[in-house]
C-alpha cells in the first residue's frame, strides 16, 4: 500500500467535526467519528475533507452530513444517542459468572499446563458448600441477565457439583427472577447419555474445543486410554445435535459450537480447520490466537508465533469462509461478527474482552474451585502461576466489596480507551477493546502499551481486513456480513424462573 502524504494534503481545521482516520488501501481512507459512524473516502475526497473544504451540495458533502462529520451541522443529540446505545453495558454489572468446578482434567493440552491438575488431585474439586456460596454471590449481581459458565479443568469430572449449582441456582432464581442461563465448556470425553439427558433437561448450553483436523487436535490435546480426543469430541457433537432435533429445536439455531486455539501448528492448516468445523456441523469458528495464560514458559516457543503470521492465517481462513458462504454453507467467524456488529449496526454485542471498558469485574467474575473470586478467567489462570493480582476476595466476601474492589477500578480505567495512548487517536477506537489481564501478563501493567501489544495487533489487523472488505462493497459479501451480524437469541437456554430443576434424568448415573 502506498502511504498518503500528509505534507502534500496539508490538512487544516475547517468544516470537519472531530474525526479519526486510517488508510486502508491505495485509494481508500477510513474516517470514523466519536459515535462510531464511518466513511471510506478516496484520496481526493479525503484531501478535500482534511483541508476542511467540502463544497455544499456536492455528493461528498451529503455523505459527510449524513454521517455527522461536519462541524456546522453537528448533531449533538444524535451523537449522544449513538454513544449511549454503544455503551449500554457500562452500568449493567457482572452477567458472566465463570465457575471452575475443578482443576482436574482428563486431557493434557500442550498449551495448558499451569491451570489444570491431574485426575488424582481431588483436592482441586469445588465443594458443594463453596458452590452454593458462589451461586449466592453470582445471583447478587445487579445484572438482570446471569450466565453461569462451567469450566475447569474439565467440568464433567466434578459433575455432582455442576448439578448442585444448576439445581441450587434454579431454585434460588424462583425468588430472584433473573434471566438465568447455564453453559458448559467441556471436551465431552467424559460425557454419558445420562449426563447429556440431565444437561438437556436443564437447558445447559454445551460448547467444546476443536483445535482443527483430527491429527492436529490429537497432537495438541492428549487423551489417555483412547488416545483420540478428536473422535471423543466429534462423536458427542453429533449426538448432542441429534438430541436438540429430538426435542424439537431448530438445528440452524441450536447446535454445538466449538472453540479453536490457534497455535503455530494451526497456521498452515487454515483450510483444514474451516473444513473440519463445517464437517462437524458448527456454524461458527472463533479464530482465537493462543494467549499467554496457563501454559508453561517452555511451551511458548513451540506454540507462539508473530502476530503478522496469525493475521495471514486469519485472512485466508475468513476469505475461504466467505467463499463457502457464497456456495450456501453457513459458517461465520466470531471475531468478524463482533466487530461487524459494532461497525454496521452501531450496537455492541457485549463480548467482554472486546469492549470499552472491558468486562473484568463489571461484566464478569470467575470463581475458582477453592472459593477465591477473580476479576476474570485470565486472572484466575494467573493465580495458578502464583500471581494473585486479580483476586478480589472469596465466596464469603460481600458482593459489593468484590465488585467495588480497587483492582476492578484500576481495570475499568485501564481498559477505557479514552486514557490509552494510541487508542485515543485510532480510527478503530469506537469498535475496539483491550484486556487488562493480558496487558499485565504480557507487558507488566494493566495499561499495557498498544504499539507493541499483541491483542492490539490482532484487533487492528482484523479491522483492517474487514474495512478492506467493506471498501470493496461486494453485494454478495455485504449480504454475508449482514447475516453474520444478525443475532438470533437462543431463548430455549433461558431458564424459566418458575420451573423446578429437572432432577430425574441424571439419577441413574450421577
Amino acid at each position: 500500500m502506498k502511504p498518503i502524504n500528509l505534507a502534500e494534503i496539508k490538512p487544516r481545521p475547517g468544516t470537519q467535526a472531530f474525526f479519526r482516520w486510517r488508510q486502508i488501501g491505495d485509494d481508500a481512507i477510513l474516517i470514523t467519528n466519536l459515535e462510531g459512524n464511518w466513511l471510506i473516502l478516496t484520496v481526493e475526497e479525503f484531501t478535500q475533507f482534511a483541508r476542511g473544504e467540502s463544497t455544499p451540495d456536492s455528493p461528498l458533502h451529503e455523505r459527510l452530513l449524513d454521517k455527522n462529520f461536519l462541524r456546522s451541522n453537528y448533531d449533538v443529540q444524535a451523537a449522544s444517542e449513538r454513544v449511549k446505545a454503544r455503551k449500554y453495558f457500562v452500568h449493567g454489572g457482572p452477567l458472566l459468572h465463570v465457575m471452575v468446578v475443578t482443576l482436574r482434567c482428563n486431557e493434557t493440552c500442550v498449551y495448558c499446563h499451569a491451570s489444570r491438575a491431574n485426575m488424582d488431585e481431588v483436592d482441586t474439586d469445588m465443594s458443594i458448600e463453596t458452590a452454593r456460596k458462589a451461586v449466592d454471590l453470582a445471583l447478587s449481581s445487579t445484572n438482570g441477565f446471569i450466565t453461569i459458565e462451567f469450566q475447569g479443568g474439565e467440568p464433567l469430572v466434578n459433575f455432582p457439583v455442576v448439578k448442585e449449582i444448576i439445581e441450587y441456582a434454579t431454585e434460588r432464581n424462583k425468588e430472584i427472577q433473573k434471566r438465568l442461563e447455564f453453559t458448559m465448556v467441556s471436551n465431552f470425553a467424559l460425557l454419558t447419555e445420562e449426563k447429556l439427558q440431565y444437561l438437556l433437561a436443564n437447558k445447559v448450553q454445551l460448547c467444546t474445543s476443536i483445535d482443527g483436523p483430527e491429527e492436529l487436535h490429537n497432537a495438541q490435546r492428549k487423551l489417555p486410554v483412547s488416545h483420540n480426543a478428536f473422535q471423543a469430541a466429534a462423536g458427542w457433537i453429533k449426538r448432542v445435535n441429534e438430541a436438540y432435533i429430538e426435542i424439537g429445536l431448530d438445528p440452524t439455531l441450536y447446535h454445538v459450537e466449538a472453540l479453536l486455539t490457534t497455535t503455530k501448528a494451526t497456521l498452515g492448516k487454515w483450510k483444514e480447520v474451516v473444513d473440519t468445523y463445517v464437517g462437524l456441523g458448527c456454524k461458527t469458528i472463533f479464530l482465537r490466537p493462543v494467549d499467554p495464560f496457563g501454559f508453561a514458559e517452555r511451551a511458548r516457543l513451540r506454540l507462539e508465533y508473530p502476530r503478522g503470521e496469525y493475521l495471514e492465517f486469519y485472512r485466508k481462513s475468513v476469505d475461504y469462509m466467505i467463499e463457502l458462504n457464497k456456495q450456501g454453507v453457513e459458517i461465520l467467524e466470531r471475531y468478524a461478527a463482533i466487530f461487524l456488529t459494532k461497525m454496521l449496526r452501531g450496537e455492541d454485542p457485549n463480548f467482554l474482552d472486546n469492549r470499552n471498558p472491558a468486562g473484568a469485574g463489571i461484566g464478569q467474575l470467575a470463581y475458582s474451585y477453592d472459593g477465591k473470586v477473580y476479576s476474570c478467567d485470565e486472572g484466575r489462570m494467573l493465580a495458578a502461576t502464583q500471581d494473585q493480582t486479580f483476586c478480589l476476595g472469596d465466596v464469603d466476601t460481600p458482593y459489593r466489596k468484590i465488585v467495588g474492589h480497587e483492582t476492578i477500578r484500576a481495570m475499568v480505567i485501564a481498559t477505557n480507551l479514552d486514557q490509552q495512548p494510541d487508542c485515543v487517536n485510532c480510527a478503530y477506537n469506537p469498535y475496539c477493546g483491550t484486556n487488562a489481564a493480558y496487558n499485565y501478563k504480557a507487558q507488566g501493567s494493566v495499561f499495557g502499551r498498544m504499539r507493541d501489544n499483541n491483542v492490539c495487533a490482532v484487533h487492528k489487523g482484523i479491522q483492517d481486513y474487514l474495512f478492506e472488505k467493506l471498501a470493496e462493497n461486494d453485494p454478495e459479501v455485504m449480504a454475508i456480513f449482514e447475516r453474520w451480524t444478525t443475532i438470533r437469541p437462543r431463548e430455549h437456554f433461558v431458564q424459566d424462573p418458575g420451573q423446578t430443576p429437572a432432577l430425574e434424568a441424571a439419577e441413574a448415573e450421577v
Partner: protein
Amino acid sequence: MSSENQISFTDIPDAIASASGTDRSVSMTVDSELYPLQAVYGASYIFIDRCYVFIDRPAPGSYRITLSAKQSVEEAEALRQLVGEFANELLSCTWRHQVTQDNRVAIETVTVQAIAGAMGEPSLDDLADFDFTDEALDDPLGIAQSWEEKHGRPSPDAKAKTASEPGADEAKADAEEASA
C-alpha cells in the same frame, strides 16, 4: 548507585544512557520538562519485578533512573534492551499522563457509572457496617506520620505512652531518633 566499567551504547547518546557491566546496571538521564514525575513513577514501577530501580535528581531539570537487573545480565545488549524498554514505557506513560488529564471527565464518568452500576445501591446492612468514624485513619505505628513531622517535633510523652504497647521497640527507636 555507583557505576564502574562504563559501557557505551552505539545507538543511544552517552548523555542519555550509560551502563555498568560490573553492577549489571544501567542509568538513564531524562529531561523533567519532557517527562513528568508521574510518568517516571509509572514506568519505573513496571520494572520493579525485573530490576532494582532508583530515581534521583542529578541536576535541576532532569531525572536519572538507574535500573539494576535482579538476575545476572551477560551482555551489554541485555542492558541496552532494558534502556530501550524503559524509554518506550516512559514515553507511553508520559502520553497517558497527558491524555488522562485531557479526558479526565469522560474517564471518571465511565468509571463511576461502571462501578456504581455493578455495586448497586447499598443495603441497610451495608450502611450499618459503614465506618463513619475516622478510626480507619488511626496510625499506631506512626507510619503515616511524615519524616518532617517526626524530626521536627520531639515527643517525650509519646515515649512513655507507647512503652507498654505492641511495637514499643520501634516507637522507642523513632522517638530516640526524633530527639537525636
